Structures are given as structure tokens and as C-alpha cells.
């Protein structure tokens, strides 16, 4: 599945490329749907496993496979990419074929990250992903793109090199790069803490957690629409995925011990970043900060359970981490959609400043409807996917401590405040900028993806069980492993 995409480096320069890439990404999506139909959601076993030797001397295997934790994220990837490619044509880009090729390569690598079961392979995919993203932001980005893209690259690179050290260390301890061999490792307390921190550094940058989040607003603001969408929808999820795949099961004791810090950082992300988002004047920056705040729920859900040892059980833990997982998928859809929306406006007005807008609803009613919908979803409206994850995390936190739940729940207010305040100033109101009065509503290429996303968001909101069923057993398995590992 991955190799097929990797080969797809197009250097042709006709508009055929556009359709070829859209169709191939759709084929990949179809393939993943086919995989979904074969996927057995009972039990936490790895499926579609591919394991061939790669670098024998270091016992590295080309080991791919999916379980209930990675599969939803792979589906998200294969779902978002065609949308991004499909909308790529709306904003005139130079070197469209390279743009599309970058995204296809990126898709392959992202799937690789989610399906790699060999830590070395994981790292290879993880790092390699930086290249297309670097190019996408740098070449097709905005005015200040160089700063943003270098910042993005160095930040994430710095984060991940520590992970590399941790992975090597684990390899030396086990003699294998297989993630599952790492699970069975008996590490001392200090080792665990250090390894945890090394992994955390990589994941925290990606998620991003406060205080290593500042690359995100810059990267988002400068990235082209498609880049922002992928960045928000999928790249950020890798951090959360990493926490579940590596940090929790490999270093359960450290997760347990450091959970307080993690929870505090998550709460800072939720509240502090929410407040920061409130004061943004740039729409993309606002949504970027809101992403940080929402990802705060992911980390909160991952670690909050450890705070209350009396109440820890695999059920409670599963509740919390399924909250995280659902939040990740849902945030992927919603923030992706919001960035698409902003892209639509940017293509017309060439501004991201909130002050340049107003009364968009008058000239773009369809668009306004969708944008308001996604904004509400971003504010965690029940019935949309945004609610599900957050409410599960809040519930799980309540089992631990009322005040954590209270603080995290404050996002209901803050989140609504910054999103809807933006909506008020952009979509509603009188037309203040005469350019807005004569822009067109969504065309088909823009409308279809947004509509599909809207349907997905609603579907996940009113009936999340299918998604949950997909990952349920794997999450239970994970929780049991972690609880056993931490000796709780």
C-alpha cells in the first residue's frame, strides 16, 4: 500500500496530473475502505501484517500492520488527502504537479507512520515526512514562509532526534526494533522517565503541547490551504498516536509518575491557548491556536486517568483514551474543514485578517452556512464530532478530579467565544470591504469536499459507535497493558 504511493512522483506537467493524482488518492481511499471491510474489530490483534526483513544486521524489519488505534487515523489520512488534492486546483498554484506529488508522497509517509510496527521504520517515516511538508510550506506558502518553514522544520527535527536516541536505547536493551518487544521490556524508573521524556519531546512538538507549540501558528499561517489542512488534520495526530503507541505502553511507570505534569500542560494548552486564540486577528492563527487547545484534550485524555489511583481501571482508562482518539479523528475533520473554509475566502479576498471581512454571508450564503456549521462543531456542539471526544475526556477527568474537569470544560465557553466571535466578525455583519460584495459563492470543487466533511462530522457526532467499535478492543488491550505495566 505504501510502496505504491511512494513511487508516485510525478514530474509531468499537464492538467492530467491533477486528475491522475486525485484519482489515485481516491483509489488509495478505496483501498483503505476495502481494508476496513476486511478489518476484524474484535480483539486487539495487529492485522494486515507485513513483516519482511529490512536491515538484518540491526534486526530491523519492514514491519507494517494496523490495529484499532492506527486504523482510524489511516482512514482519516486517506480520507483527507483526496479532499486536499481535489481542492488544490481552486487556488492557482505554480508547479501544480509538484504540489500534488508532494501531497501524495506525504500521504504515503503518513500512512507509513501510522502503520509502522518497527520503531526504526516508524522513525524513518516520521522524519521523512518533514521533507514534503517543508517543501509545501516553503514553496507555496505565504509571505513569511521561510521563517515559518524553517521554524517548523527545526522544531520538529529537534523534537524527534531525542526520540531517535530513545529508540536506539530501547533497541540496545532489547536487541530488536520491534515495538512489541519494547512493550515487554523491564526498565528501571530512571530509564523510563528519560525515555518517556525523550519520546514526549518528539510527540509534544508534533501535537503540539504548550510550550512547544509556537511553530504551529506560524506554519499554519504561511502554509497553503492544503498544507494547513494536512498539518492540522493529520500531522498533529501523529503526536497523539505516538503517545498511545509508544509512551504509554513502553513506559507505563513514567507515564504514571509524570502524569501530573502532563495534565497541567494539557490544561494550560486548553485554557491559556484558548485565551490566546481569543485575541488573534488572523483567522488561520486563530484556528491554529484552537487546534492547540483541542489537542490539549488529547493529551489530557491520555494521562488524566493516572492521577487517581483509586479509580484506575481499564474501563476508565479506555473511556479517557477513546476520548483522545475520537477527539483526534474529529479534530482532523473539523480543523481541516475550517482551514479549507479560510482557504476559500483567502482565494477570493487574499487576506486572512478578520478585520478585512464582514458580511460574507450576504454574498456567499452556502459557504456561510457551512462555515458556521464547522465553527459550531469546533466549539464542540453536541451532535457534531467535536463534542464526542471532549465530553468523554471531561467525563474521564471528572472521575479523577472535579477541578480538572471544570478547567478542561471551560473550553466549552472559551472555544465558543473565540470561534463564534470570529464568525460574528467575518460571516455576519455588514459588508465593510467592498471586495466582498462581488465575490462568488462556492463552486462545485469547493462545495463538494466541504459538504462531505460536514456529513462526516454530523455522522460521527450522532453515531460515533462504528468508529468506536473499530478501536474499542485495541484500546481495551492497550489500557490493560498499561495498567498491568504500571502495576496499578
Amino acid at each position, binding site marked *: 500500500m505504501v510502496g505504491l504511493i511512494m513511487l508516485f512522483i510525478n514530474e509531468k506537467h499537464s492538467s492530467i496530473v491533477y486528475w491522475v493524482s486525485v484519482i489515485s488518492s481516491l483509489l488509495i481511499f478505496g483501498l483503505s475502505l476495502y481494508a476496513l471491510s476486511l478489518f476484524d474489530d474484535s480483539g486487539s490483534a495487529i492485522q494486515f501484517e507485513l513483516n519482511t526483513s*529490512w*536491515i*538484518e*544486521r*540491526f534486526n530491523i524489519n519492514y514491519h507494517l500492520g494496523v490495529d484499532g488505534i492506527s486504523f482510524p487515523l489511516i482512514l482519516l489520512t486517506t480520507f483527507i488527502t483526496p479532499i486536499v488534492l481535489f481542492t488544490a486546483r481552486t487556488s492557482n498554484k505554480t508547479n501544480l504537479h509538484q504540489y500534488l506529488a508532494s501531497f501524495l508522497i506525504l500521504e504515503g509517509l503518513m500512512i507509513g507512520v501510522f502503520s509502522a510496527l518497527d520503531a526504526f521504520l516508524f*522513525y*524513518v*517515516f516520521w*522524519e*521523512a515526512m*518533514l*521533507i514534503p511538508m*517543508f*517543501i509545501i510550506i*516553503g*514553496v507555496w*506558502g505565504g509571505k513569511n*514562509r*521561510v521563517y515559518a*518553514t*524553517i521554524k517548523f*522544520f*527545526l522544531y520538529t*527535527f*529537534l523534537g524527534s*532526534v*531525542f526520540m*531517535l*536516541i530513545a529508540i*536506539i*536505547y530501547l*533497541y*540496545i536493551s532489547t536487541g530488536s526494533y520491534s515495538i512489541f518487544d519494547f512493550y515487554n521490556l523491564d526498565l528501571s524508573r530512571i530509564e523510563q522517565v528519560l525515555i518517556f521524556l525523550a519520546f514526549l519531546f518528539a510527540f509534544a512538538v508534533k501535537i503540539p503541547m504548550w510550550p512547544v507549540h509556537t511553530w504551529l501558528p506560524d506554519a499554519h499561517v504561511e502554509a497553503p490551504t492544503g498544507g494547513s489542512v494536512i498539518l492540522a488534520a493529520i500531522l498533529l495526530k501523529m503526536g497523539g498516536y505516538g503517545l498511545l503507541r509508544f509512551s504509554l505502553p513502553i513506559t507505563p511507570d513514567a507515564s504514571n509518575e509524570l502524569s501530573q505534569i502532563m495534565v497541567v500542560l494539557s490544561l494550560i494548552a486548553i485554557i491559556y491557548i484558548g485565551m490566546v486564540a481569543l485575541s488573534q486577528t488572523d483567522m488561520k492563527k486563530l484556528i491554529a491556536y484552537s487546534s492547540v487547545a483541542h489537542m490539549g484534550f488529547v493529551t489530557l485524555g491520555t494521562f488524566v486517568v493516572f492521577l487517581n489511583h483509586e479509580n484506575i481501571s481499564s474501563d476508565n482508562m479506555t473511556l479517557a483514551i477513546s476520548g483522545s482518539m475520537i477527539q483526534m479523528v474529529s479534530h482532523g475533520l473539523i480543523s481541516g474543514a475550517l482551514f479549507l473554509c479560510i482557504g476559500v475566502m483567502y482565494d477570493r479576498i487574499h487576506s486572512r485578517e478578520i478585520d478585512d471581512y464582514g458580511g460574507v454571508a450576504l454574498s456567499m450564503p452556502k459557504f456561510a452556512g457551512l462555515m458556521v456549521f464547522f465553527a459550531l462543531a469546533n466549539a464542540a456542539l453536541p451532535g457534531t464530532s467535536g463534542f464526542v471526544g471532549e465530553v468523554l475526556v471531561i467525563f474521564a477527568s471528572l472521575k479523577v478530579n472535579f477541578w480538572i474537569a471544570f478547567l478542561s470544560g471551560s473550553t466549552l465557553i472559551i472555544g465558543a467565544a473565540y470561534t463564534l466571535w470570529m464568525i460574528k466578525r467575518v460571516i455576519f455583519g455588514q459588508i465593510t470591504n467592498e471586495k466582498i460584495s462581488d465575490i462568488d459563492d462556492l463552486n462545485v470543487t469547493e462545495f463538494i469536499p466541504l459538504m462531505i466533511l460536514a456529513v462526516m462530522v454530523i455522522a460521527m457526532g450522532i453515531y460515533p459507535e462504528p468508529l468506536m467499535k473499530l478501536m474499542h478492543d485495541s484500546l481495551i488491550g492497550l489500557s490493560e497493558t498499561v495498567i498491568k505495566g504500571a502495576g496499578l
Partner: protein
Amino acid sequence: MTFNIIGFILPEITIAFGICTVILVNSLSKKASIGLIHSLILFFLVLALFFSFVSLEIPDRIIFNGHYMIDSFGTNLKIIALIAAILVHLTSVKSKQNIKNEIFLVQLFATLGVLILCSAHNLLTVYLGLETLTLSMYGIVASNRSSVDATESAMKFFILGAIASAIFLYGISILYGVTGTLSLDSLKELVIISSLEIRIAVAFIACGIIFKFGAFPFHSWVPDSYQGSNTTAAIYISSVPKLGAFALISRLFLDALNAMSEFWSVLILSAGLFSIIIGNLIALMQINLRRMLAYSAIGHIGFVLLSFSIVSDTGVSASLTYLLMYLIMTIAAFGLIESIASEDHQHIELSDLKGLSKSHPSVAFMLLFCMFSMVGIPPFIGFYAKWMVLSELIYNDWIWLAIIGVIMSVIAAYFYLRVVWFMYFENADQPIENKGLKNTQSITTLLLSLMLFLIGLYPNPIIDYTRIIISSFLLID
């Protein structure tokens, strides 16, 4: 018997013969086309390579009264050196007249020096090989006689090189005085306990070796000579001689002075560590591309030394792996720079790269590969090199060294990325004229860039190859 001996050193003989032929052809026929000379050089290099492959079959033996050692380690290094020399030659060949032919001739001399170093088994031979290499390198750097920068850098290189070889010789003389032998075999037997005298000698020798590698604090010649000379020269001095230095350090330290590894590894380690730090930091501030690559080379060599200082078969093979991958990267990078540099515009600065992705899309793309590889991003080979070194460091409980290494890599990423940024993100003020690549050059650079990527996808061959070389070397002795 005589014939047999010559049979063992056929690669060297071939090169030497080639040198004579080229000199003759060059001086006898004034009209001899440049193409002919180039093909002759290439022919002899390939022939030598062929003979090296043949001599892989020869069982290990010591010839010339213990002055010369034919073993698979040396032969393999020769093969690598010859391949590198061929690649260098292919990438640096230009149709333009005013690159002097002599430079390629002198390169042959230097290659000969490297080959001798690979097999030298006596301090005298070592010295001779080393000087053959060094003296030719002065010539290479100075080849652009009409340039102030070239001659200045050659002068500096010459003086520093002379001092370095004097220091090296001083060390050898002390070693000789203490042990009374010049043969590496006897040295190995005699040097069992490390007395202070031997240590001092080793410290002197280490200086000479580190100078050859171009590592801190004996690195000063590297940036100046890379920048001052032309790119053709830089390609060569950045690649093949490093192999000679590797052969030198392996023969001398790893093999002969193995008993003192605890002592010299510290010297090598500190030189490596500081090279990584200093090289990468100073490279941050460079705007001249060759000078930047020179500092980056110092950083890379730092990793090679760092890994070498773990005196184990895995550590040294990681070191050799790093070196090989560095060779591929550096030849590719310089080759690409060479391809966009014109005669009157030899000093390629970062700002010259603006808009390169538009005017030379393929060169830009390959350079992008190189840069990401040098940063150490998978799936390019630079990553595997760094990873192996880091693995070794961590395996030997040098985690803090590994951390410094990775942090410096991150810092280094900035200046590599700056190349990509200028190529891709900036538009040219005045685009570099697209001259189109010469065939050999484009094919070679393409080949190298593909290697960057393909070996990255499947690094097994190189990893196994270096492992075999090193373990055979350590096993025998």
C-alpha cells in the same frame, strides 16, 4: 617471484603507469585533445579498479620486506578510493578549456598516494604514501594559478601541511626511538604497555592524522582551501584523501597501536566532538557555498572520528559507513555545485542559488536530496550514517555525546535548509543561465543522487560491506 610481487600491487602500478602515460601524451602531442587525456585517466582508473577487484582474490600477504601489506581491508579501501576517484573525475570533467588538465594528472598522483596508504605496512611507506598524497593535494589546491584566492589558500595549506607532516614525523621518530622499529607488525608486538614516551609519540602522530582528516583543531586549511581553490579541486580534496586518512588511522592506530586504544581514542574522540561542534556552528554563518560545505565536512568528519574512537568492530564499521555515505553526499553536492558554476563565476554563494529550482530544476532537485541527506533525514543515506554512529555511541554508554551530536545536527539542519530555501523559496534576481549539464556529469550526479535515495531505501549492502571489511581487518590481526 618478481612478477608475482608486481602482480600484487597492480592497482598502484597501473596508476603510476597511467601517470607516466598522461604526462607523455600531454607533453609530446600538443594537439592531444582534452577528451583523450580524460579518457586515458578514466581508463587507468577503471583498470586499477579492475585489478583491485582481482586482487581481492589474493590471500593476505606482506610483501616488500614487510613494507607493504596486501589484505582484503586494504584492497577494499582501494576499491572504494578508486570508485570515489572515478566518480570525482566524472563529476568534475568540464568541456571548458581553462580548467587545467594538470589537475586531473595531479589527482592521479594523489590517488596513488591513497592507494599506497591503504597498503602501507611500515612507517616509512606510510610516510611516503602520506607525502605523495599531501604534496599532490597542494598541487590540486593551487591548480588555479591565476587566482589570488587559490594561491593564497594553497600557500596556507602548504605551510600547515608541512607543519603537520613535521609533527607527524616527529611522533614517528620518537616511536622509532622507543621501539626501535618502523614495521607496524613489530610495533604491534612491542607496544603492549603504553609508556609515557609512546604516548607522546602517539599524541604527535594523532595530530598528523587529525590534520589529514581536517578535524578540529587542525581544520584550518579545510575551509580556506575549499573556498580558495576551484570546485574541481574541492570535490577531490573533500573526498578521496579522507579515505587515505581513514586507512592511515586504521593501520596505525587501530591495528598497530591497538594496545593503546584507551589512550588515543580519547584524543580522537575529543577532536571529533569539537569538530562536530565547531564545524557546524561556524557553517551556520557562511554564505559561500564551498566554504559552508567545508565546515559541514568538518562536522561530518567529527562524526566519523567520534565513531572511530569507539574501538570496536561495530564502532569502526559505523565510522567507515559514515565515511562512505559522506563521500557519496559530498561528491554529489560538489558535483552539482560544479555543474552550475561557470568559469568566471567560481565562487558560488548562497544568493546565487536563488531561483535555481526554476532555472535548473533537476540540479535543484538533486541538491535538495543532498542537503536533506546531509541533514540526516531518512530515507536518505545521511540518516543511516548518523544513526549508526549514534547507535554505537549509545551502545557504549556515551549518551551525552549522542545528545550533543543530535543537537548539533539540528543546528546544522539550518544551514543545509538554507540552501533548499534559496533554491526553492526565493526567486532569482538574475537567473543563472542554464548551460545544461555535460552528459557524463549529469549521469554521474544523477547516479549519485539516486544512490542517496536508493541506498537509503535499502542500506543493507553498505552496512554489511563495511562490517565485513572491518571485521576481517580486526579478525586477522
